[in-house]
């Protein structure tokens, strides 16, 4: 979405923490015509804000969530509604103690300090009413605290009213008019409100309101149980709201925190209880508020036992009563991330949903910026509502995943963690073949993708010591040494890789070239037959995406992008189509499947199944060509994300299985193997230092910093051009570097392998921060089997971005020495790129 500017009529539906902060930030950005409506009364209209537990722990493994939380805390503090109480996540198991060292790592990577690991006695010191004999330790965040979210919302609303915000409470939405695909009017019990932009900030009700406009906000209301007990004798002389640190008993999925003279106990441990947005009772029918549903005691009984054991002095006190107990309703999504941005179904209809208290004001600011400027200070690509594929917006999927995720709210979640529910929805045409080859599947963008193939286990003997084994269970999870063996076999011979998860869309029409020139950084006025790898930039020159575009015809361009953010990319391009309709976008994702064929024997194999000339002269690098492979019309695109000779072979989806069989049969004499995403996404990519969107490339970093500012800037205008030219003139604040690990040996003698997001420190252990205040951390990590080294990527300030510079990585409570291997886009494997150009 290009920024709509501030001359817009905006209607914000919902007066919770999100709606209020959004309205406030819109006025701050100069939008003057804003109306906020809510069906409830003010200041507490009865949504989830009104009963939230209101505490904030800033440290999260997700960078995006952490940034939203930190921005929210900053605003809460500015508003004077934040009480810093500190917070402790306690550990009951050894596995959790290890997890707490990961929390320390995330805190350092995202720059949240100080944090500290505590012994049980130190926990007892801070929380004297805890039974410290039940725990092994704690992770202490002194900066954690409690906010008054209702007060924050009120202050922001009042400030916005001073700037012209109109507020209509007790106003229920009856419908939303959509004209020519654009939402134009909100119909309510108090009349109609015309609007250019309508933002749904209705928390658990959001799906229902979105449906009125033909759009989907894929979240489900869920129940979170909490009780308040009191009065607690120990808290009798409390003056403030909270004087003891909040305790998160993460191993039991519970929390306990002081609230005045009482203690609040909350739980994510009970059975997942979902409901439909339409099933939330009306304000009039509710005994309390619509989102404070009747408490179901039997679901909470086990949690009472746990709390009693942990804090017997308070919870076991016969004089302390249960004064309030609710099944609170909150919003949960299918992937645990918020839903921000314009809905892909209906123009002008925006979502600011699935936000909790800790992200509220940050999300409000972000959505306001997206509306006005078309991009936000915090890059929320993981929260972009446009990311969801249609199968991910079904009620079945949302409920399955939200229910599965609910009990993991405080879980120890592995970076490669896999969902178990509602799998096998998107199956490639190769799927049956892959199952026969004992593929171990991981999910990506809803697809079942082979991570490695059990049938390749024999390669482990072939490659022996060249394949690293991992001793520690954590790093062996969702991983196999077979990945590294597949990699070596690809480098020696050839591999075929299922790339069905690609998102593919065509931009077509007389205005296509201009559209593509506008969104793509690189020159797109190229001959038909060319494949261009290009960044798409935001207006401020950050990364929106990197992808390849094939010129199919004079007026047809085919975009191929990763599955994960494919739908977001499609929307970005669609948002920049000319108003006059001279270019259109066509989604081809489910029309084509893609098989990667790479390795030194790839040409031998391809030549044996096609009569077309696929020699280097006839089909050089970065070109595509239509060829026949047996009966299958195939588009062969000569590019590579793994750094070897070969092609992406695109065929009609239903002919994929035939293509697979032909290539597999022809490849057999050449020793071809099927290789999984472990090779494609990690080992092959990292040896070539190829950057990945979402890891190395994101809105916070620019092209120069990413080391991708090669060649001259095209004369034609494109989004982010001005900023990009400026970035070329200035000294980059950080530079993308590749590092290798010098020694993996931990103090126990077990070799450990970091998995990404660890802080990059000096050899003496000092954090590294660039002049823009960004911490250096590992963006990607993985084996480089051909190199015989473990490879890391990360941004370093210029003074550290020197080849040979010796640094260290903190991982699981220990430091490991690393060395900078490259400080530009030169690959650590095959630096001349001889293989891809052979």
């Amino acid at each position: 979405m290009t920024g709509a500017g501030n001359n817009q009529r905006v209607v914000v539906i919902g007066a919770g923490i999100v709606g209020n902060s959004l309205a406030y930030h819109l006025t701050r950005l100069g939008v003057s015509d804003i109306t906020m409506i809510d069906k409830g009364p003010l200041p507490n209209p009865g949504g989830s804000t009104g009963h939230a537990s209101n505490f904030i722990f800033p440290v999260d493994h997700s960078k995006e969530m952490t940034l939203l939380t930190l921005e929210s805390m900053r605003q809460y503090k500015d508003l004077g509604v934040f009480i810093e109480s500190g917070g402790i996540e306690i550990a009951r198991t050894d596995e959790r103690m290890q997890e707490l060292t990961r929390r320390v790592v995330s805190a350092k990577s995202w720059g949240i300090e100080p944090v500290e690991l505590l012994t049980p006695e130190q926990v007892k010191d801070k929380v004297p009413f805890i039974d410290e004999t039940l725990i092994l330790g704690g992770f202490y965040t002194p900066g954690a605290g409690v906010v008054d979210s209702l007060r924050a919302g009120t202050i922001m609303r009042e400030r916005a009213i001073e700037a012209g915000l109109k507020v209509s409470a007790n106003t229920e939405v009856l419908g939303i008019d959509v004209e020519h695909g654009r939402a134009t009017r909100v119909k309510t019990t108090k009349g109609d409100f015309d609007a250019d932009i309508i933002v749904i900030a209705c928390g658990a009700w959001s799906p229902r309101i979105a449906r009125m406009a033909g759009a989907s906000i894929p979240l489900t209301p869920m129940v979170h149980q909490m009780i308040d007990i009191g009065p607690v004798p120990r808290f009798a002389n409390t003056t403030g709201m909270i004087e003891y640190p909040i305790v998160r008993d993460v191993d039991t999925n519970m929390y306990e925190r002081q609230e005045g003279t009482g203690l609040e106990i909350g739980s994510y441990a009970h059975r997942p209880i979902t409901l439909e947005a339409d099933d939330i009772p009306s304000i009039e029918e509710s005994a309390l508020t619509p989102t404070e549903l009747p408490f179901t005691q039997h679901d909470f009984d086990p949690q009472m036992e746990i709390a009693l054991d942990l804090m017997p002095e308070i919870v076991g006190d016969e004089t302390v009563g249960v004064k309030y107990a609710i099944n609170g309703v909150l919003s949960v999504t299918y992937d645990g991330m918020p839903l921000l941005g314009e809905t892909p179904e209906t123009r002008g209809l925006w979502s600011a949903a699935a936000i909790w208290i800790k992200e509220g004001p940050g999300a409000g600011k972000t959505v306001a910026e997206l509306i006005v400027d078309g991009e936000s200070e915090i890059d929320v690509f993981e929260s972009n509502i446009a990311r969801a594929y249609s199968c991910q917006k079904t009620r079945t999927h949302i409920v399955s995943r939200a229910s599965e995720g609910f009990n993991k709210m405080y879980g120890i979640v592995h970076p490669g963690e896999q969902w178990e529910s509602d799998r096998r929805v998107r199956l490639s045409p190769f799927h049956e073949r892959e199952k026969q080859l004992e593929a171990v599947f991981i999910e990506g963008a809803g697809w079942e993708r082979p991570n490695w193939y059990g049938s390749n286990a024999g390669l482990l003997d072939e490659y022996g010591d060249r394949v690293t084994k991992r001793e520690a269970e954590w790093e062996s999870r969702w991983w196999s040494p077979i990945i590294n063996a597949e990699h070596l076999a690809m480098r020696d011979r050839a591999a075929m890789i299922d790339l069905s998860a690609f998102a593919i869309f065509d931009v077509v029409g007389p205005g296509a070239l201009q559209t593509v020139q506008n969104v793509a950084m690189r020159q797109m006025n190229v001959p038909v037959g060319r494949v261009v790898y290009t960044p798409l930039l935001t207006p401020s020159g950050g990364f929106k995406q990197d992808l390849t575009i094939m010129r199919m015809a004079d007026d047809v361009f085919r975009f191929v992008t990763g599955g994960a953010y494919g739908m977001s990319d499609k929307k970005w391009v669609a948002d920049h189509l000319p108003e006059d309709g001279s270019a259109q976008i066509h989604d081809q994702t489910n029309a084509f499947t893609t098989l990667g064929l790479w390795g030194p024997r790839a040409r031998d194999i391809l030549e044996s199944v096609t009569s077309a000339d696929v020699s280097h002269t006839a089909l050089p690098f970065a070109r595509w060509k239509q060829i026949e492979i047996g009966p299958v019309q195939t588009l062969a695109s000569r590019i590579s994300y793994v750094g070897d000779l070969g092609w992406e072979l695109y065929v009609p989806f239903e002919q994929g299985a035939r293509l697979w069989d032909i290539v597999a049969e022809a490849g057999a004499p050449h020793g071809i193997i099927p290789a999984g995403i472990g090779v494609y996404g990690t080992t092959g990519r990292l040896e070539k230092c190829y950057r990945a969107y979402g890891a190395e490339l994101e809105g916070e970093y620019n092209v120069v910093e990413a080391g991708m500012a090669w060649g001259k800037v095209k004369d034609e205008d494109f989004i982010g051009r001005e900023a990009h030219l400026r970035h070329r003139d200035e000294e980059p604040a950080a530079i993308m570097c590749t590092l290798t690990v010098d020694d993996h040996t931990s103090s126990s003698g077990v070799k450990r392998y970091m998995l990404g997001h660890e802080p990059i420190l000096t050899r003496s252990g000092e954090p590294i921060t660039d002049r823009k205040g960004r911490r250096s951390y590992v963006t990607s990590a993985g084996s480089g089997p051909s190199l015989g080294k473990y490879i890391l990527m990360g941004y370093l300030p210029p003074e550290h971005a020197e080849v040979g510079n010796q640094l260290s990585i903190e991982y699981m409570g220990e430091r490991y020495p690393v060395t900078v291997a490259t400080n530009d886009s030169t690959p650590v494997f095959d630096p001349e790129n001889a293989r891809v150009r052979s």
Partner: protein
Amino acid sequence: MNVLVSVKRVPLTGGKIVLTDDERAISTRHLGFTVSPHEECGVEEAVRLIEQHGGSSTVLTLGPPEAEEQLRDMMALGIDRAVHLVTDASNEWDPQATANAIVEAIRAEPDPYDLLLFGNESADAGNYQVAIRVAHKLGLPVVTGVKAITVESDQSVRLEQEVPGGRDVYVVPMPAVATVKEGLNLPRYPSVPGRLRAKRKPVASSTPARPQPQLEMVRLVLPPGAGKETEVLGNGADAAPAVVKVLDELGLL
């Protein structure tokens, strides 16, 4: 001494009451359940009497299987045991049938009760009959509308009945029946240990046969225009004079 308290599972309603399609019950799709405030006071009184005098307290209900929730809630407050006369949730029992079933249950109990407490009326049907019918059948004295209970000796109890302008005081021999009203005491909140103990306390269940009803509720009617009217008196300090005026009108100043 042995004290029995009878309670009834009723919906915990919000502002607006919604009826079922057949208009014979309150729709409970979104509602939790509770007992009447009168009964809560009866339970509190029973717990206090046993704390003071020793003995045992029992809570009794006639209601659907789900009414065990209310029995556990009451035991969480300190009641020792429960008697559950399990009914089919789809049929309301009339006061006569309810009283007969309770009398049968009381007669079947191993130990006699010294004091039988009821709420003055149920929160939903409000027939005001069950306690009186039980007392009559058992041949026991009954005092209604009780706001204070004092056990004077092993044999007698002092029951104070609220009447307009004052209180009528009765001293009656035990066993006796009393229907109590909200205000009798200030009921406690359950403690967490109380909650957890309640899970393990005994519930004696039986399933009495439902006799042909003598009294059948045909349908419920919602009073028209039963909405709340709210008047905003002003904002901040400006509202003070209007608030004073209202308080004055209410005779509170």
